[in-house]
């Protein structure tokens, strides 16, 4: 080994500055505040610029990681951002919410020897830099090809499809059921993890490119997919409606006042800005003792929202141990710092109400881990006679979602699997010609980046089917916005 890599290894992974846990646990501002240009360059210098980069294979959309990091190291942050955008339409979002530790950073060579390059932090840095310094530019679009594509759902999958197709010369319309675009990025992920202005900027970027957005339009009721194609002249339709039906535990007392699905709790807080009540009209009960049932990212988002809304005690109730929690380590760590309590190996069995029909406690049972189950995780088994009451005044159920049948129920020709999710081939094609699907309505609850990866694939398939060509993108700057 020569000396250069030795030198590189000596610089430790650069931490992103964060709000102090005790301060941030009471406000909705973003937790990590972002790299300075100096720190970003220092961190970028840690990248070994591997000849055969392993990080790219860990990325669902194949971001050219070593290339953009090299540009950051050289101080050309705007060029770095454009390099990312060649394959990722939402870098400021992905830099914040991707589980990099199991994707690009998990496969980084340095992770085997110590600490991986902070790829996510760098991605966020260059995207933020480009936007904050007003250097976002519109890439050159291919000449209009005369084809119209409808995208159903303005979430991460739909936004990716729209972003890809508009550059390829299509006329693209996104239909969104809610009054704001962004899907889970707007209604689900809280402000402190993903500032809404970031999402709004990404959507505005797509609109500047020419994507048309129709809000408050529920495809499946006001217009069917068939009508979009036969009457409205769309040549192809992409379905990215998400998995929207919240699951409940089916335990007694679940319909008491003060019991929320995570979808409701987060939608009130994020989309309808209930944390700014009464300036915004939508209310949200402010529990003093809040229990969130579940162990995923949505559960962590809910419990940390509860803290910020003034809870004295905010607990996660999870039936397995912390090692099996599906939430990102970073989220669990942030929650611990902020004072989230973890009631592990515990499962709720009943919600108990007072005489007004409000939650007063939640009855739980202790669990122990038995043999591994189908998912490979050790199966939790109840411990007999270990029931106990936890006094709470607010319960959030965050145990996942089912497929929402609102659109699919009106399309009998669309092939679904036994759980109601849409079946697709490896390129996003459904059983109906020129209808494509991707995101949570195909995969069940997954991540933003997987939905984006699915969107990218579907966009390629649409281009192949309609134009008979492979998609090619460039990020040559055509106009500043």
């Amino acid at each position: 080994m020569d000396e250069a890599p030795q030198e590189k290894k000596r610089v430790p992974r650069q931490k992103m500055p964060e709000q102090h846990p005790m301060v941030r646990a009471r406000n909705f501002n973003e937790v990590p505040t972002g790299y300075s240009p100096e720190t970003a360059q220092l961190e970028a210098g840690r990248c070994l610029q591997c000849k055969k980069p392993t990080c790219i294979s860990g990325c669902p959309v194949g971001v050219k990681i070593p290339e953009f990091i090299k540009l950051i190291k050289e101080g050309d942050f705007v060029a770095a951002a454009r390099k990312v955008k060649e394959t990722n339409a939402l870098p400021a979002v992905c830099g914040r919410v991707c589980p990099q530790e199991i994707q690009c950073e998990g496969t980084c060579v340095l992770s085997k020897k110590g600490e991986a390059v902070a790829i996510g932090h760098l991605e966020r840095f260059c995207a933020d830099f480009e936007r904050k310094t007003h250097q976002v530019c519109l890439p050159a679009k291919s000449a209009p090809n005369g084809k119209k594509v409808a995208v159903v759902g303005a979430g991460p999958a739909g936004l990716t499809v729209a972003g890809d197709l508009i550059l390829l010369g299509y006329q693209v319309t996104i239909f969104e059921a809610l009054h704001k675009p962004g899907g889970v990025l707007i209604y689900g992920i809280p402000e402190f993890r993903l500032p809404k202005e970031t999402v709004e900027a990404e959507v505005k970027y797509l609109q500047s490119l020419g994507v048309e957005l129709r809000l408050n339009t529920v495809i499946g009721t006001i217009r069917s997919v068939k009508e979009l194609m036969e009457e409205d002249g769309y040549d192809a339709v992409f379905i990215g409606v998400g998995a929207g039906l919240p699951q409940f535990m089916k335990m007694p007392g679940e319909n008491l006042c003060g019991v929320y699905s995570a979808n409701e709790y987060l939608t009130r807080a994020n989309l309808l800005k209930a944390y700014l009540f009464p300036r915004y009209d939508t209310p949200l009960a402010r529990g003093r003792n809040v229990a969130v049932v579940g162990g995923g990212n949505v559960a962590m988002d809910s419990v940390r929202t509860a803290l910020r809304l003034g809870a004295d005690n905010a607990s996660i109730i999870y039936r397995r141990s912390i090692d099996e929690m599906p939430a990102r380590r970073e989220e669990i760590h942030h929650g611990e710092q902020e004072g989230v309590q973890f009631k592990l190996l515990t499962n709720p069995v009943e919600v108990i109400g007072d005489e007004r029909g409000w939650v007063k406690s939640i009855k739980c049972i202790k669990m122990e881990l038995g043999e591994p189950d189908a998912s490979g995780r050790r199966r939790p088994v109840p411990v007999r006679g270990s029931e106990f009451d936890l006094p709470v005044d607010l319960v959030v159920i965050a145990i996942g979602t089912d497929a929402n049948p609102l659109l699919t129920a009106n399309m009998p020709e669309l092939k679904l699997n036994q759980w109601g999710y849409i079946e697709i081939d490896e390129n996003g094609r459904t059983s109906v010609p020129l209808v494509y699907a991707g995101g949570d309505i195909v995969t069940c609850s997954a991540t933003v980046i997987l939905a984006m990866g699915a969107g990218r694939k579907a966009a390629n398939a649409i281009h192949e089917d309609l134009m008979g060509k492979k998609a090619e993108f460039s990020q040559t700057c055509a106009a500043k916005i």
Partner: protein
Amino acid sequence: MNRIIERTELVPNVHKMVIEAPLLAKKVLPGHFLIIMADEEGERIPISVSDWDEKAGTVTIFFLEAGVSTMKLALKNAGDSLHAVVGPLGRPAKIGKYGTVLLGGGCYGIGAITSIARAMKAAGNKIIIITEARSKYLLYNQEVLRPLADNYIETTSDGSSGIKGKVQDVVQYITYQEKVDLAYFIGCTFMMMTCSNATRGKNLRTLVALNSLMLDGTGMCGVCRVTVGGQTKFACVDGPEFDGHQVDWLGVLQRKSMYLQEEMLAYQYHSCRALRPKEEESEQHG
């Protein structure tokens, strides 16, 4: 988009609103509801569609001014726009030839039963319409409902018009007098509960259109869940029409009262300018 064609206060606190929505007017069916947001800071509230005009491209709603969101709607006038109008949502009413159909409406329901009454009549049913209000001056929509009904009955709590009493009292009386095949009630939760209780045990199929709290109206949040026949249902996608004898009414009333305190606070906040942040004061309001 979502331009208001007409907004009239028919009787104190009850408003009729006609909204421009051509696509909606083509697809809406009796029993459907809309989610409406008055402005960007507003709540998303469900409101039954009462009528529509496919040619003119409009839909008509009736609402009772009862809190901030409906107050904001009541302050809108012809020419103004709504921030969001989403629909048609929910399952449409099951229209068919049943024989004699009794329709009971109270409050905004006096307006909301219109399209169901019309469709039931067109399906060949004998129509009995009963409306209720506290006093004569709160009754409305007679000119539309009277021609649709074979038997049109008004009730008032104070006896100032029609029969002294409520819909439930007349229902008791009528069901003794003649065979009714289907009863359908729309109004406040309490009215739908008492009317359902009035037909209980009479072998009379009873439907109600629940008006639970909602956010998205598409099944995504579950706030509208209600226990029907021991099972949890979502009023937005499984309803809003349910069997009134199977509904857990206490649960519905409790869940509807979840935000009473907040509703009052919001109302005070909006009507009391002193409570508002300073910067909003300087904004120009046309």
